[in-house]
């Protein structure tokens, strides 16, 4: 596909288009659900249902946006197509925080401890991976993988030792699920604010992403402060990831697949990709959550949304990889 030069006018139009997609998907997801709302239903019931739907739709939106943005940034700066928001162990840290808090401290404020766990993890990963203030992508990747494995083992140990009731709860939480019983609007606002801040920041850094993707030496030679770019990007991406895990559990695959899908369609220019990732990630997760609720209406049981995104996103991704976009654009 021939990409036309990106003028401010086109940028705004594209951004508006993506936002409209998000809003349209969200509106559909508020209107539909496990059961229909009828005109003769009582106002109280309608209000409760709409409240719950609005909450899930907003949560799915901010979490999807946060994950897609984080995935895009990690893939760009680590120059690794397998990079995803959880690659630096942030999900494990947040998970451990939520689980430990729910078991021993407080169930009500567990997400706060989840976020704290993510913060501690970010600090540990950077302390380990940095050398004289510089972050080497390979060291960072390896540190993340090891930290992830360690957290995974710790969570499994806890899972093995607790009562069967808690074991089921931990397993369910680890699958990633949005429909919360106890709406936490303030937390959604925090995650939403962080995601928005990340989107704006990444939009400004997009040119830097493009140059780093070509080569770090080139980027450095062209005046991009590569080290600072890395640090700011990784910390921001880790923060939004940690917040989203604290809110909805580790929802897999969205952060990995959204950036790739968009690159196949839009090309490698991060100035286009950043707003697209935010809105498309949001739309995708809202749609996936809607599907789980519709499935609940049909079968009586709601599958966790994280499972659904991975199960449907995987085959679709392979299909795109093998057929339509194969020659048109390189996968990076």
């Amino acid at each position, binding site marked *: 596909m021939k990409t036309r030069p990106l003028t401010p006018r086109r940028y705004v139009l594209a951004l508006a288009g993506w936002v409209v997609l998000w809003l349209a998907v969200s509106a559909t997801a508020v209107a539909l659900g*496990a059961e229909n709302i009828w005109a003769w239903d009582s106002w109280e019931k309608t209000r409760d249902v709409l409240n719950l739907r609005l909450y899930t739709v907003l949560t799915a939106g901010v979490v999807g946006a946060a994950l897609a943005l984080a995935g895009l940034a990690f893939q760009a700066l680590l120059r690794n197509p397998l990079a995803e928001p959880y690659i630096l162990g942030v999900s494990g840290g947040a998970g451990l925080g939520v689980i430990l808090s729910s*078991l021993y401290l407080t*169930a009500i404020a567990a997400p706060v401890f989840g976020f704290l766990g993510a913060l501690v993890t970010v600090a540990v990963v950077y302390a380990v991976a940095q050398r004289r203030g510089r972050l080497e992508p390979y060291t960072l990747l390896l540190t993340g993988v090891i930290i992830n494995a360690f957290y995974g083992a710790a969570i499994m140990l806890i899972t093995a030792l607790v009562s069967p009731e808690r074991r089921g709860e931990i397993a369910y939480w680890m699958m990633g699920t949005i429909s919360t019983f106890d709406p936490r609007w303030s937390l959604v606002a925090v995650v939403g604010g962080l995601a928005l801040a990340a989107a704006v920041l990444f939009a400004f850094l997009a040119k830097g992403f493009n140059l780093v993707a070509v080569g770090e030496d080139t980027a450095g030679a062209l005046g991009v402060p590569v080290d600072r770019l890395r640090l700011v990007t990784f910390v921001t991406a880790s923060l939004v990831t940690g917040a989203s895990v604290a809110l909805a559990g580790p929802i897999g695959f969205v952060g990995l697949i959204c950036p790739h899908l968009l690159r196949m369609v839009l090309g490698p220019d991060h100035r286009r990709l950043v707003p697209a990732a935010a809105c498309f990630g949001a739309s995708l997760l809202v749609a996936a959550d809607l599907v789980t609720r519709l499935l609940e209406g049909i079968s009586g049981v709601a599958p966790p949304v994280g499972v659904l995104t991975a199960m449907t996103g995987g085959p679709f991704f392979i299909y795109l990889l093998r057929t339509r976009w194969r020659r048109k654009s390189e996968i990076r």
Partner: protein
Amino acid sequence: MKHTILYLVLASALAAGLVGGCRESSAPEKDDQFEPKGMRILSLTPNVTEILFALGLGNSIVGRSNYCEFPDEAKTIPAVGDTINLNLERIISLEPTVAFIVTKRTDVVKTLDGLGIRTVALESDTMTELLETIETIGHETGRTAPAQTLIQDIRHDLDKVRRLVKDRPRPKVLFTFPMAIGSTNMMVAGRGTFVDELLSVAGAENAFPDAADWPTITPQRVVELAPDVVIVNAVGNDAAPDRLEAIRRAWTNLPSVPAVANSRVYILEDAFLTIPGPAVGLAARRLAQVIHKRGAGQPSPIPERDRP
């Protein structure tokens, strides 16, 4: 403590009755033996342990599962893991002769059989299966008469609860297990489960209409189901201290649900409600008490009776 005492009373009553029986009949039956000679029992499911104690076989149990914590005496018996992960070395060293386990997994049965332990696989998903299980255990341990008595007691208990609630309206009741971690969706008792049967005995209609085991549903579905009464069984005390508060708070977010509007969300911590064992009569009674409560301050029409 209450449990211990009641079980002791129960056990001694049984013993007395049996001894008395022995004296009267000229030819004592084999199953009148209080401790079957040489029988070393491995009990791998909580309800089986309860049944064995009720049959007066508590002293013959040499090993139990990690989750067999009732009656209190059971806690002193060595634990050997659970159905998914059995400590085979400990099992061998305990030298059991017979194992009782509620499972559909043939590999577990085969493994235990392979160790020279006579393994009896049982089922107790429904009331009928529970009574059959008691009968089988009685037969296998040579205590058929106490087993019959226990079965009759359970039938009697359940009938009593049925009679108490006979003329009362049958509210729609949702029986749930909460999800504390991340307080997400909840598990509810589907049609055809053991708890579903108990609800029906206790004079209620299950608010969850589908035949499903223990499905996980979203709050949205709860709004649609509009139960008159919600029973949250918050069992398992290895959770944060504010857990019950978290659950209570979460329910207030659904004011359109009749149970919430009328303050009829009951958060219980009664593990025995979902254990298909000798206490099912009491479980039904407890449910009936909660379900047919008249309102704050007014006494429940179902008389109180403590759990053993």
